[in-house]
């Protein structure tokens, strides 16, 4: 078992709100320099950048394992992260959101429950994004985290971890992760989750979040 640093919420220049410098090659090089073992590409309502980042990462020495993800804006304007086994699975899930590329930060026509169901239907893992933040978080939009939505994890922002806000979310009984929500290269790795896994990848991420078979995860 090895312990790796994972940054499970990284935007690329495909997100309109992200820096144009967030190209696949630049992300791959910076993550290798930082020693990140795994990242998840989570652009707003699209997974189109996942494969290019995977290819860039495999072309770099010590490049991270790249998980294909999406950050869905639900009808309630809450952000939900989906992590998938493959770029194809992520792409199929994103296609169902039918959000126009030019409006990729807009809300998809699906509720919070439907978004989590959609992610699970495509074999993915669902996390409520940056639950410690007021804007675009499930607690911010909905007052509290509904207990009938089967999240696989709750994400605490890097700033939230720094301010000691993670403990407030422990009572949900869900694994807590922290990630950078990077929109620029400088932020990569600023929030991290340490994963105890055999081989970095989606299946091991699922085991680590479920704390199965000796795998585990802890906020860095």
């Amino acid at each position, binding site marked *: 078992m090895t312990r790796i640093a994972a940054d499970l919420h990284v935007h690329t220049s495909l997100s309109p709100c992200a820096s144009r410098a967030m190209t696949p090659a630049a992300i791959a090089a910076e993550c290798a320099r930082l020693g990140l073992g795994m990242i998840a590409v989570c652009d707003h309502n699209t997974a189109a950048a996942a494969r290019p980042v995977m290819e860039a990462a495999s072309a770099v020495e010590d490049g991270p394992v790249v998980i294909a993800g999406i950050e869905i804006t639900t009808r*309630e*304007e809450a952000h939900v992260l989906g992590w998938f086994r493959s770029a194809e699975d992520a792409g199929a899930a994103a296609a169902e959101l039918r959000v126009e590329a030019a409006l990729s930060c807009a809300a998809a026509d699906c*509720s*919070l429950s439907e978004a989590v169901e959609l992610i699970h239907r495509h074999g993915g893992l669902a996390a409520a994004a940056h639950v410690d933040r*007021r804007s675009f978080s499930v*607690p*911010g*939009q*909905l*007052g*509290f985290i*509904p207990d009938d939505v089967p999240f696989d994890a709750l994400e605490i922002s890097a700033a939230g971890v720094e301010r000691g806000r993670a403990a407030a979310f422990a009572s949900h009984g869900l694994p807590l992760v922290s990630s950078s929500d990077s929109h620029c290269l400088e932020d990569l790795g600023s929030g991290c989750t340490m994963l105890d896994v055999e081989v970095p990848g989606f299946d091991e991420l699922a085991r680590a979040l479920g704390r199965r078979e000796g795998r585990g995860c802890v906020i860095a």
Partner: protein
Amino acid sequence: MTLSDIASRLDLEVLTPELAIEGGDEVSRGHASDLLSDVLANAPSGGLLLTTQVHMNVIAVAVHAGLAAVVFTQGMRPEAAVCRKAVEEGLPLLASKDSTFDLAGRLYELGLRGRESR
């Protein structure tokens, strides 16, 4: 002004006919927000909530905040399960085709005000 007066003067549709709204307490305050964290923090107890937020959580939040009723604006309608939960909790739900801005203006004309300034 009671909830039933407001409903009839502003032509609000009652989504929870199982709950009687006649002869209730006077309603003198209101709050307009789609952010339920803001409702928890700022809505005046005993007031009306105007919102386009139709998620189930609106019921628990409104009950916790001690609101008199929730009015869904600009034609937004919650699912039946939300109405059933509201009936269980004794929280009247109403609906209006007006925008939140217009409905708040009409309520202001009827004498309702926002939360007391802090």
